[in-house]
């Protein structure tokens, strides 16, 4: 999403495509995520815009060959702006029968499927619940099929390196990658460099993998002569000038937190506990100690946030991170941070719920939890990021609000953003305005210390223990106005509740802008979080069809931008697509008395552009297939494009 403007509709299927969707699918042990990651890198280096969608099972090594053990990586890349990982693949690489069965239904009619016949044994067909091999029964007739024994070709290619069959087959993903690189005319150099670095201590393995890569590439050249395989050259996208790299959401959040702490002139303390898909942030930060980062892997989610609160109390920028179930455990401690008015950033990498739910699938269903999910009147700012690159900005914004207003802030991301990669224009840290933290150095009311005396923003002073003469006590019991002493008096609790609410509602949230379209009209599609890509593309496509529809994407979930109510009321209809059962819709209705219509989906898969376009089309009577004019969008769940699996 680094391009300057969208030029054409997503994944147009003309002769010289400006975008292609490729899905690599195999067993979870086949290294498909690695293949996808390296293909992404080569795509970025080729100057294409791109978006990816890694989709893998929760099991580390699910039983081999099974349907639930299939791991897939989808990439959409092109010579124009790319907003999503693409609805349906043009090319599917299926490394075994299970991968074929799970992924084939989403392949575009006429698309190309590349199949490793070496894995189509009776046993593997049984595991994939195929009675008859799909290679033999004509069921693949509506696609271009390139079926050959990749396994055998890989074994042959790496023979000189003396590996056993089992080890040799591990290079199968590199063979496949080599073929994919040939298909899209990509250089192999960066992958070779990466393999050499990765297997530095095992040069034989590096060489074997490179041999497999080269063999796959060479196969492409040969196959082109006789089969359905054609080499495609996707032109570089026209991007804003600058330095680029690829980035995932987890990396961007980690970097944003480091940047935020620097802008606040504070050391960063990160308390975490392993949980999917949030752990990657802990892993990234653990390697950034030179930036004054302390990472603490706590005994549980509660200890992780409590240690972060302790660090903030002692004068560092405390951060904790988790996913829904872990956030639930941290809830009481969030109340403590609200009561003691200490800065804290809580990152929630949302996943499907409730309970353990869908650990590796994405959902936006923790919005209520973020905005409302605490005991007592416990207001807390909530910021949500809409893409991997945006996660960097949002992490800085969360740090800024936390330090400026002495408050915990929740940063919402999700499993999709955390794992997805996109090209990112490397920002200049000097272009951000610093927000240095201030600590109280002496008594703030003559001879008296008032730990809860508020400034004009409603924030109390930050007082580090160890400061001479400023001893005081804080805690979770209701505080007396100004003094912070224990006080249960009715008037005092009223005053302190009001003070906490007013402080948070007064956070300086920028006015809401229209992401695409006009400031009024027939329909606005309101989104938040990782639905940005599909909504943007669907609205753009619809506008090209002449429909009066605009896109508003909200970053500040709490408090909401002050102009948002008036803005939404300026459209005739408000449609709110969400990967939950309608949570933001409820907040909008509540805050603005706006007739927001939900469009919900909880299949663990992101919205497809086509789904959104269809929903938008129902508001207009000149849309094909939309008989009888305006049709209310239904409240029911949209099916997943892969629901038939």
């Amino acid at each position, binding site marked *: 999403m680094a391009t300057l403007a969208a030029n054409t509709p997503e994944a147009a299927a003309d002769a010289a495509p400006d975008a292609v969707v490729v899905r690599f699918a195999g067993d979870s042990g086949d290294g498909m995520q690695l293949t996808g990651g390296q293909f992404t890198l080569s795509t970025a280096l080729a100057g294409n815009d791109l978006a990816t969608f890694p989709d893998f099972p929760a099991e580390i090594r699910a039983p081999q060959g099974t349907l639930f053990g299939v791991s897939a990586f989808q990439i959409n890349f092109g010579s124009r702006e790319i907003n999503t990982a693409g609805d349906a693949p043009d090319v599917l690489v299926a490394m075994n029968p299970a991968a074929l069965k799970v992924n084939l239904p989403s392949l575009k009619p006429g698309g190309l499927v590349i199949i490793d016949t070496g894995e189509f044994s009776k046993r593997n067909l049984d595991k994939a619940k195929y009675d008859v091999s799909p290679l033999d029964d004509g069921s693949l007739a509506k696609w271009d099929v390139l079926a050959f024994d990749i396994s055998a070709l890989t074994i042959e290619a790496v023979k000189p390196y003396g590996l056993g069959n089992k080890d040799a087959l591990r290079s199968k993903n590199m063979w496949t990658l080599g073929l994919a690189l040939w298909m899209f005319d990509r250089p192999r150099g960066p992958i070779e460099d990466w393999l050499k670095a990765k297997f530095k201590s095992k040069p034989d393995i590096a060489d074997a993998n490179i041999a497999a890569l080269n063999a796959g590439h060479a196969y492409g050249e040969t196959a082109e002569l006789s089969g359905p395989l054609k080499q495609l050259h996707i032109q570089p996208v026209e991007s804003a000038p600058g330095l680029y790299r690829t980035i995932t959401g987890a990396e961007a959040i980690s970097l944003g937190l480091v940047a935020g702490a620097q802008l606040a002139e504070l050391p960063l303390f990160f308390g975490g506990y392993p949980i999917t898909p949030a752990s990657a942030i802990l892993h990234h930060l653990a390697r950034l100690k030179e930036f004054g980062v302390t990472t603490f892997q706590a005994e549980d989610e509660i200890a992780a946030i*409590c240690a972060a*609160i302790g660090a903030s109390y002692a004068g560092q920028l405390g951060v904790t991170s988790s996913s829904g179930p872990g956030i639930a455990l941290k809830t009481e401690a969030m109340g403590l941070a609200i009561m003691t008015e200490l800065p804290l950033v809580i990152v929630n990498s949302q996943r499907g719920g409730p309970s353990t739910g869908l650990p590796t699938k994405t959902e936006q269903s923790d919005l209520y939890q973020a905005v409302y999910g605490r005991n007592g009147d416990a207001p807390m700012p909530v910021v949500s990021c809409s893409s991997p690159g945006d996660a960097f900005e949002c992490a800085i914004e969360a740090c800024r609000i936390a330090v400026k207003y002495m408050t915990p802030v929740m940063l919402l991301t999700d499993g999709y953003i955390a794992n997805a990669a996109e090209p990112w224009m490397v920002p200049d840290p000097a272009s951000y305005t610093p927000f240095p933290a201030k600590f109280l150095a002496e008594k703030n009311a003559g001879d008296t210390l008032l730990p809860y005396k508020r400034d004009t923003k409603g924030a109390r002073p930050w007082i580090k223990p160890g400061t001479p003469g400023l001893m005081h006590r804080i*805690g979770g019991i209701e505080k007396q106005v100004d003094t912070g002493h224990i006080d249960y008096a009715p008037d005092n609790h009223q005053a302190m509740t009001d003070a906490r609410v007013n402080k948070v509602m007064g956070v300086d949230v920028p006015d809401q802008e229209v992401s695409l379209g006009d400031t009024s009209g027939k329909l606005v599609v309101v989104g938040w979080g990782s639905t940005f890509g599909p909504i943007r593309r669907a609205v753009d496509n619809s506008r090209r069809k002449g429909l009066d529809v605009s896109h508003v994407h909200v970053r500040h979930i709490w408090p909401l931008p002050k102009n948002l109510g008036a803005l939404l009321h300026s459209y005739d209809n408000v449609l709110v697509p969400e990967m939950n059962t309608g949570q933001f819709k409820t907040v909008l209705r509540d805050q603005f008395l706006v007739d927001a219509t939900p469009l919900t989906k909880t299949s663990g898969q992101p919205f497809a552009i086509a789904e959104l376009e269809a929903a938008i089309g129902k508001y207009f009577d000149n849309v094909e297939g939309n008989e009888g004019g305006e049709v209310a969008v239904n409240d029911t769940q949209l099916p997943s494009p892969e629901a038939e699996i």
Partner: protein
Amino acid sequence: MNEMTKIETTLKDWETDQEVRWCPGCGDYAILKAVQRTLPQLGADPSNTVFISGIGCSSRFPYYMETYGFHTIHGRAPAVATGVKLANPDLDIWLVTGDGDGLSIGGNHMMHVLRRNVNMQIMLFNNEIYGLTKGQSSPTSRIGTKSPSTPIGSYDRPANPCAFALGSGARFVARGFDISKKLPEVLVAAHAHQGAAFIEIFQNCIVYNKDVFEAFAVPKGAGDHQLWLEHGEPMLFGDAKTGMDKGIALDVDALELKVVDVADGDWEAAGVLVHDQTNRTIVHMLVEMPFGPFPMALGVLYDDPQPTFESAVIEERAKSAAGKEANLAKLLAKGQTWTVEATEGHPA
């Protein structure tokens, strides 16, 4: 504790202007005074001292100490304190908790603060009951304790705080009781220990669990029931009249402790053990001694320092950062990058 400049203070300097809200006669008052008496002896600096507590009667403690104080949430004080210590290792941290806060809802955090060996003093006030919630049985209540939640007597087996601490890997374990004159000595030793120092303090809840420690924690007949341990000294006890005429010896065949009589002060002949505060095996036996047949082991039971958690964190941070430059611009541009040149249509 930490190396620090000694400050001259008096007991009064450590009192706040807040009204103390414990029940009249509560053992907490005696502990509060013992602590306020100890800190001037240590030369401690109120500005550099932090009391951190969880929830419960004991956890109101910070409000009455003229220091930095953080009254956190139920059971979580060890986790908060760990964050405070890692953020500023120079602070002198005292953790105040109870049997419910520290061993029930916060048992997990207690285990980990001890095994990590975060440098702080941990005072666990054990009154074998939930006081602030009006008298339910706690994880240290003896079997048969009648309470609102166990009207005909509790039936779950109690935890032994010092055994828990040792099992969690604590490097300092001590015992005292609220009205004991020797409590400040124990606190001084805990403060001198570099690392997590666990102190179980028997505390009399006069409302909900009155006098459960009466058998040993009263001046009368104390000698018969209190075994005060001192490093390098024989494990002797006895009442004031007859003198120290009993001792603790090791039954080598059964591999357990036994009480022996000491004639004419010849404890060596009686095989009485000399307390070695670094002998983990014997300390395990001492904390498990059933009271009744045996006296209550008190004082510094175990003191064998190991490197602290915060020193390990600092070391790891230095090692990890060694030779690396903290340049954010370079970090952001790390990995494989490409440059899009300015064109006529898209100037830089």
